[in-house]
């Protein structure tokens, strides 16, 4: 193998690795730049283990399938549509308190949603829906402070999320009362 072809192969490999590193957050960056801001109330998944290592595992009002009024009908109509691993769109609406509430579950992305509504792409896992915003990375220095804050003021904890036109969501910040964690 000549030196030139070795060099070309090596440069190509470095470029591939760099592109992968760019691709990892690309979707999130796009969503953060173009998305609509929604605020979701946090429901702790495991109140005894809020922090799992470097992450807080979050659940929301919209994380349970049965939180959506039409979920039962949809399941009866065609259970295959909501089998484990299937995708869905969760339509949510802005409430009077600024928190976004569950409205309906859809199989297709709804067109022409009004300004006070948004649709999030999620994946069904049993009675849970995952939107890709469940893991919040916590800086080491803030870890114990956030854990105490979440334990003491669980009802006041919420997240600010961006939702882009295709339904992808990106976590922007976590708030407990007026304290912001990014």
């Amino acid at each position, binding site marked *: 193998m000549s030196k030139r072809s070795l*060099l070309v192969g090596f440069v190509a490999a470095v470029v591939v*690795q*760099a592109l992968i590193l760019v691709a*990892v957050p690309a979707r*999130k960056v796009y969503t953060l730049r173009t998305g609509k801001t929604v605020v979701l109330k946090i429901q702790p998944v495991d109140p005894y283990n809020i922090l799992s290592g*470097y992450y807080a595992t979050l659940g929301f009002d919209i994380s349970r399938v049965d939180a959506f009024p039409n979920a039962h009908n949809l399941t009866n109509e065609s259970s295959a549509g909501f089998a484990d691993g299937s995708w869905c769109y969760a339509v949510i609406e802005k409430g009077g308190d600024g928190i976004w509430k569950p409205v309906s579950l859809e199989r297709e992305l709804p067109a022409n949603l009004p300004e006070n509504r948004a649709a999030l792409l999620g994946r069904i896992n049993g009675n849970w829906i995952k939107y890709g915003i469940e893991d919040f*990375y916590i*800086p*080491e220095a803030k870890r114990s402070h956030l854990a105490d804050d979440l334990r003491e003021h669980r009802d006041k904890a919420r997240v600010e999320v961006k939702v882009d036109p295709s339904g992808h969501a990106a976590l922007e910040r976590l708030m407990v009362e007026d304290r912001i964690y990014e």
Partner: protein
Amino acid sequence: MAMTPNQNMSTKFRAALRTELPIWVQKGIVSEETEKQLASTYQLDNLKHESSSLLSAVIFTLGGLLLGGGLISFVAANWEVIPTPIKLALLFTALLAFHIIGFWLWQGKNWRRLGHALIFCGCLVFGANIGLVAQIFHVSSNWYAGFGAWAFGSLVMAWATRSWIIGVLVLLTSFLWFLGFQYDNHDQAALFYPLILAVSLLPLAWIIRSRVLYTGTLLGIITAACVLAGVHGGSRQLLLTMAAGGMFMWTLGELHRAAEWRSEFSNLAAGSGLSVLAVAAYVWSFHYLWNPSVFGPMRSQWAILFFVLTIAASVLLWRKGRQPQLWLTTGVLVVGGILCASALLARADAANGESLFTVTANLAALILAAVIIGASLIDERRAVFWLGSLYLVLLILSRFLEYETSLLVKSAAFLACGVAVILAGISYEKYLRRHIRRIAAETGGNGI
């Protein structure tokens, strides 16, 4: 596992030869001309350089691992005072620095081992960077997706730099991806993983003549096939795949030797195949593995492929192979055949088969122990003999501990095994001495 007919080029043997040769010349055992021929044949002049470069390779790789580990820890420590763009710039700079300095040392300065060690570290940093970038942007994808991205990026680098150790990194990271992927409702797509491994890593191992990467990839393929079979198929399917995979690896290893296609791959590949069969025969020698409740549906895709490949390799082996190695292959195929037939027939006779198939699995394990001991006699390799003997003892003692027998019987079994091992060892040593005397007589009493 029969020994290659190639000369012994191990560093240990050549170092001993280098020490002894001047003494032999001084005593008149060999002439100076013969000394030069031996020194040339065994490349004794390169010995000093080789041992120092081996040491430096170990030190460089260790240093690289520590550097990579330090960086990963630095990533985990999190540095929130640094703004995101600067964090990203630092990550990319670290990645490029390892790779570019590594390549410059490898190609520019001809420090091959140090260069490779740094590029390997660059691949570790690449994996750490994936984790950190995901943290910065709160990317909460499936945990295994990161390993998939790491494996793909490292695979491209392994090919670009012809590096076996980066190939091993690809093997490990891609296997973690596979475990997560198949568990996450992707059973059908995950079936292709062993094929992807074969296509992406076996040609690389072949080109760079890496025994570790070649055998590791084959073991990865068989292990992945076993995971796929065992998760849904249960005990019977797992045994079928393990036995077929073990036979395939053995025959492939023997074919490498007989056909002289990369014969350096043969010992490790055949030995690994034998180990897979030994584990399968031992585990299924316990009667509760044959309980019908642990049987699931058959998922035989990979087991069938291993069978077909075993048959193809065996046909070629019988054309090119020689006795007594073919006897060993016959023994291995009989063991694999018994285990596969037991796995296939177990369901048909589920009501009464438990005791029957426990006996057949034990019979397979006994034959395998005999094959291993037979290989040690053919190869004159003491370590293989003791491995075979210990396997046999383990099998016998397991049976005595598995079934309810009185303490007196158990004690007698332990004593009998101990005496048998000692007698077998004495017999083996006598055999080796007789064999050496016979060779000495055939070579005119010189023995060198």
